[in-house]
């Protein structure tokens, strides 16, 4: 065993090294820690705290009262419905794409991967715009849809499509490197033992990727429920009908209904905290380190 192996051991040895002035090192250390924590505090902790503080500004009664508003309730229902449709679909896509990309070699694979990464680099507004261009009144299919009295834009289908566009990469991006790292050995062994494709997937692959899958799903869900820009463009902002929770927040805020707006925001914040907690647990659980 040569020198110290972990950063903690190295720090311990460093402290005993001749010429290492404890004063200067400690100063630097505390400076960095303070600066980092202040930066984080101002940017992250403060907003979270502000949400809850503003939501409860007028007391618990007012807080719970804001959820009695029918429009707010409708927005919650809409968000949940969207998530319930989008997340499973994207999960299926994610698993399928990961299987295809991780287990086989073929030309054009890198194009597929780039396409999967694309939504992450595109502005949410553009993500909504493209669907409006397809299905909006002046869009490609606009007149056809109007003739058949089908609304996509300014209705639930549009919201679902836009949300899907924005969130589909999450599960795939989690699973692809994971499955690449795990390799094909076990699946090949299962095949030679006579198992079919579905059997192999459910009994061999799924158990090994389950933590990555959970991780991807909760991220996908958090983003699906919280998406603002894309949905804003596509939904038309009709209160009570096509407002998701983030849009409802905007509406309430623009009406200066602070308690209402922050109350809804507090729900989403709780979701965010829960997401982070689950993420930390998953990482600890399987020693699973996301790159």
């Amino acid at each position, binding site marked *: *065993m*040569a*020198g110290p192996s972990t950063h903690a051991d190295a720090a311990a*040895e460093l402290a*005993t*090294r*001749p*010429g*290492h002035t404890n004063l200067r090192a400690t100063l630097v250390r505390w400076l960095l820690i303070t600066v980092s924590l202040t930066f984080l505090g101002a940017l992250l902790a403060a907003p979270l705290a502000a949400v809850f503080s503003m939501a409860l500004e007028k007391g618990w009664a007012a807080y719970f009262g804001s959820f009695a508003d029918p429009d707010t309730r409708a927005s919650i229902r809409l968000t949940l419905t969207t998530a319930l449709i989008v997340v499973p679909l994207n999960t299926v896509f994610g698993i399928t794409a990961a299987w295809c990309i991780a287990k086989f070699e073929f030309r054009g694979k890198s194009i597929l991967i780039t396409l999967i990464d694309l939504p992450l680099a595109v502005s949410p507004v553009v993500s909504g715009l493209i669907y409006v261009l397809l299905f909006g009144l002046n869009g490609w299919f606009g007149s056809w849809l109007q003739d058949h009295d089908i609304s996509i834009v300014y209705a639930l289908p549009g919201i679902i499509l836009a949300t899907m566009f924005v969130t589909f990469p999450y599960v795939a991006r989690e699973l692809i490197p994971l499955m690449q790292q795990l390799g094909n050995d076990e699946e090949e062994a299962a095949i030679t033992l006579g198992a079919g494709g579905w059997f192999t997937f459910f009994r061999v692959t799924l158990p090994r990727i389950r933590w990555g899958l959970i991780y991807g799903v909760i991220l996908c869900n958090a983003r699906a429920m919280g998406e603002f820009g894309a949905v804003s463009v596509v939904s038309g902002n009709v209160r009570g009908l096509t407002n998701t929770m983030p849009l409802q927040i905007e509406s309430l805020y623009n009406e200066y209904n602070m308690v209402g707006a922050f109350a809804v925001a507090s729900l989403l914040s709780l979701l965010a905290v829960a997401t982070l907690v689950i993420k930390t647990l998953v990482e600890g659980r399987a020693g699973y380190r996301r790159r």
Partner: protein
Amino acid sequence: MSIALDQVTKRYQEQPVVNDVSIDVGEGEFFVLLGPSGSGKSTLLRAIAGLTGIDHGRISLHGRDVTHVRARDRGVGLVFQNYALFRHMTVADNIEFALRVRRTKAAERRARRKELLKLVSLEGMDERLPGQLSGGQQQRVAVARALAHKPQVLLLDEPFGALDAKIREELRRTIRSVQRELGITTVLVTHDQEEAFALADTIGVMNHGRLLEVGNPSDLYAQPATRFVATFLGAANLLLARQAADGIRFGATPVSAAGAEPMQAGREHEVVAVLRPEEVEIGATRDELTSNYIARGAVEEIVFTGALERLRVRLLDEPCAAQLLGPSGNDDARLEITRTQHERRALPLAQGAQIAIGARRLHVLPTPLSSFLACAATEAEAAELAREPLLESLSTRMKTRVGLRAIDGLTGTPAPFSGVAAISGGTEAASTVEWLLRHGAAEVLVLPRNAPSPTRVYIHWTDEAARRATLAVAASLLRHVSAEAVYLGIVPEGRPGSGRAAPMRALLDARSDAQQHHGLEMRTELAIGETVSELTRNLSAGSAQMLVLGITDITQAGSAYRSLLAGQPGWPVLIVYRPPEARTAPDVVSGTAA
């Protein structure tokens, strides 16, 4: 002296990782620090480089005390096991790094770089990146880099560990030739004894933080002074023999052995002898042997290894005069024998064949602690005593056995005691000790229940006559526990100030005696007061402590030290007894006695 280490100690969480190590390395010498993992050798190297601070002692490089000097100002070159090359820099930039730090001019840097690349046979590789080189090439760049600033000392930390055998050999030759050409003082750390033999002018063997022996390779191989060195430097069979007035005996069979010292104090005692596998002679019958006859044996395993043949043989004589010590000191030990192909053709053997075994060359280890004998009222209790953690760990580390003996009621005349008698602590301990000493035991270990492995061992003798034996025993013990050694000199109260000089001199004498004749580095402390209370006070002051006590008067064990031995919760006490009439024989002082 190019490198001088004086009593260097480094502790990690109360345990000494490097324990009182003193070394002198001469100018241009190639010194190899050899030891198993965890022996502290890497830590010691890092301390010389200045990457780790030390808790006690001094480090000097070329006469300059660098103990508190920063690594970057020490002027050493260090080669790491994993090369530690700067991956984002070319080979040229890597090598020139030290010069760039010192703001050397570009032309000079280039010249030096070319010179070094030639030295390590990597000409033309200037613009390569480390990622484009093989392991062996990377290591050579690391060596060149470490030499750029013309350091006075070159340090290498297991530099060939990550490489294949063939590359390793090649690199060894490169390092050796570079070192000879430059004449630079070099210290290399390794756990591979073959490497040590191939490279070293001098080898220092370390274990558990202590430097056990220092010497040139052939001396250390032929005449090891300690069990550990004997078994680490090559395969070794360890045999228990008795030292009698007429020499060494296996049971009743006398053998001639090298390294034996004259018997001490007129008492027979047990010794450990080393028999190397290649020094074993085999014959079909006893008469065919030309060397010392040991026993008859049956061949259990034959392994062909190309140039040699290896045999594992079970000794047949019951009871066997020569007792073989197995890896855990138990009774299924096998004798390891190595034969050349020439010998094999002279006497081909199959599995199960019965042979006569002789020893061409035996080397007696000058170690006073040969084995342990657990003594208690019944054999069952003795077995339980043998399982005490401290006793078990000592016997495993010393690679020796723990025998069992029922001493019932301290009556009668028991069979002779061999080795160290071990008993449990308690109120009866003092009388038991006295009885054992009267009946022939020379050392007695009093073990309180669940005593932990000590981190500090106090040494004291009541009379100068017991000094030598006590130091020998303490030195042997301390090679097998990671503990600091402190000699406690005690003078009675009431001495006027000027009377301090003599005791202080006695302390210094004790320390230099320990160092020179027993290879033991120990601290010294002076206490004033009554012996037993001072000992008790110091022992109680910390946790995990132990005492080695030398006495010349048996009654003292019974009376004066009764309270010490019965103390609660108690500490392990190793009593060393030498009757005063030993001094009729002149004191023979040998090399690194143990």
